[in-house]
């Protein structure tokens, strides 16, 4: 088990290098540079821009910069932000927790609602309830997040006046509810659909028939026999889609003034603050990889057939 984890962790390395390579070169070929954007509306004169470019090493060829970056990476040095001049690690560190918290709570909301919903509609295949769930799931997927976010804000903050509209509120749990729901709904829809498919498949398995032939109640069959087996399928899908959940934080964080990584990443792309973009991508990717590792490991808890030597 431990050696399996170690091996997986080592496998992270090439993936991370691959991603940095792709992202680094993609960012490099983007038109414009940080110096151009540095002054905001008060553009910086071209001469000063040249100086900045030199200072940031943007005048060096891209491969040289990449190797420098990788060298830094090996010593856990993610570089320095162009704009603020602070170390990337210092900039990112305080934004990790809010994004993590948001993603996890959104995930929890999605799981708590999506899985039972999918389960329920699978058990009532072909009924009106099933159709309603399906349509609900599709609306969840096709509803733009800013729409949902604004509607929730209107309903809960302006109309009911029970929740704050935006902000982080020092970690006050009231503040996370709306952004988490907004982020989680699409994911919930996805989980509901995956769960439904998985349950439908599981229900046709021989061992479910065996369980029935034993005279066990449907409740127990569903709760124990079906759910357990379905979990692995749901987990895989949930893990793979976690990337898109993280991607969704961009819109939600911006809308709700949530101090997370998503906003920072988009802004850093806009301002061509590549060290920050790289850092954000790095964190998101490590997050994705770790989540998927955890998913794989949790298989071992659910499925005794999987052994990690």
């Amino acid at each position, binding site marked *: 088990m431990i*050696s*399996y984890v*170690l*091996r997986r962790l080592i496998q992270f390395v090439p993936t991370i290098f691959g991603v940095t390579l792709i992202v680094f070169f993609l960012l490099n070929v983007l038109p414009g540079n940080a110096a151009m954007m540095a002054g905001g509306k008060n553009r910086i004169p071209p001469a000063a821009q040249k100086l900045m470019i030199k200072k940031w090493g943007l005048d060096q060829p891209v491969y040289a910069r990449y190797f420098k970056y990788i060298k830094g990476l090996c010593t856990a040095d993610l570089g320095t932000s162009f704009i603020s001049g602070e170390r990337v690690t210092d900039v990112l560190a305080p934004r990790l927790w809010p994004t993590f918290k948001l993603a996890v709570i959104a995930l929890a909301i999605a799981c708590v609602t999506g899985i039972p919903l999918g389960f329920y509609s699978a058990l009532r295949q072909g009924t009106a309830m099933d159709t309603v769930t399906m349509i609900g799931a599709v609306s969840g997927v096709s509803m733009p997040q800013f729409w949902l976010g604004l509607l929730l804000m209107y309903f809960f903050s302006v109309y009911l006046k029970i929740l704050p509209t935006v902000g982080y509120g020092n970690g006050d749990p009231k503040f996370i509810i709306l952004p988490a729901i907004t982020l989680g709904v699409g994911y919930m829809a996805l989980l509901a659909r995956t769960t439904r498919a998985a349950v439908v498949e599981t229900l046709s398995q021989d061992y479910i028939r065996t369980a029935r032939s034993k005279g066990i109640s449907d409740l127990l069959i569903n709760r124990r026999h079906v759910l357990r087996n379905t979990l692995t399928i749901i987990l895989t899908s949930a893990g793979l889609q976690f990337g898109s959940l993280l991607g969704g934080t961009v819109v939600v964080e911006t809308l709700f003034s949530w101090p997370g990584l998503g906003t920072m990443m988009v802004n850093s792309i806009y301002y061509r603050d590549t060290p920050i973009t790289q850092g954000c991508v790095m964190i998101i990717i490590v997050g994705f990889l770790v989540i998927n590792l955890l998913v794989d490991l949790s298989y071992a808890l659910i499925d005794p057939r999987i052994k990690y*030597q």
Partner: protein
Amino acid sequence: MKKKYPHDVVSSSGNIGSAAENPMLSVEDLKVYFPVETGFLSRRREYVYAVDGVSFDLKKGETLGIVGESGCGKTTTGMAVLNLEQPTSGRVVFKGQDITDFRKLSTETQLQLRKEMQVIFQDPYSSLNPRTSLDKILEEPMKVHGLYPSPGERRDRVAYLLERVGLTPSQGKRYPHSFSGGQRQRIGIARSLALNPSMIVGDEPVSALDVSIQAQIINLLIDLQSEFDLSYVLIAHDLAVVEHISDRIAVMYLGRIVETAPYDRLFVNPLHPYTQALMSAIPVPDPKARKNRIVLTGDVPSPRHPPSGCAFHPRCPERLAECSESAPGLLHKGQAHHVACHLVR
């Protein structure tokens, strides 16, 4: 890894057909191991010893039956002969040509060999491409191999094949899903005949069929053999079927041949305890024949960790002390009867 059979093994054999001829197929000390990677930094490799030193010959026009329980390596042997599995070691000689390293042969030779050797599979459902019509299934190999170059000839050939296996040419436009299991097996047979092969490996060709259909296919296979001058390697677990079709039978257990003999010798005088147990275990459709069977204890061991010495010894009712220590070689007991057992000297 160092378990080896003595190399003498089946040298003279066969009772049907002209014994003077060189064998059509000759398999020598064939081993097929599947690597299983375990461990972390060390990258320890374990092997599944699927086939562990199998040797046999097949003469022109002969049928060799290979029987054994699941996991004994009979299917892998068949696939290795066809080069659908890469042998780990040993030699496969077909019509005098060493084809062990199939990929190293020239493309032309490969194509030629593919034409000569064909296969019929067990499961009639998975062995036909569900998205291809019957005509295409039969025509495609001809096109690839450049047989019957004109469309008309091909069409005639397809019609002939379909008729020969008991289908009608008008069914050629249909897709496999509209056929029953028995019909599909006929299609599989027709396909294997499309290229005029000289040898066919049948991997449990009748075991998935209903009893009433099984007889049809067995009869068909026997008829086709003489008509097309075929040699068969027939892999099966049902001894009764094997006895009915084969000229010679090899009994496999855990990757090795434990006994090989002409069909009649084997039934009259099975020498290996495993063969005896196998034969006694088969339920006979005659309630009066209920008898005291040899019921073997335990399960077939995993080919990943085969027992020491004779692989059968943990289950053998007559095992000797030496059975767990050394593996017996195949001994010739006359009339092409070979057996690998310490009891038989």
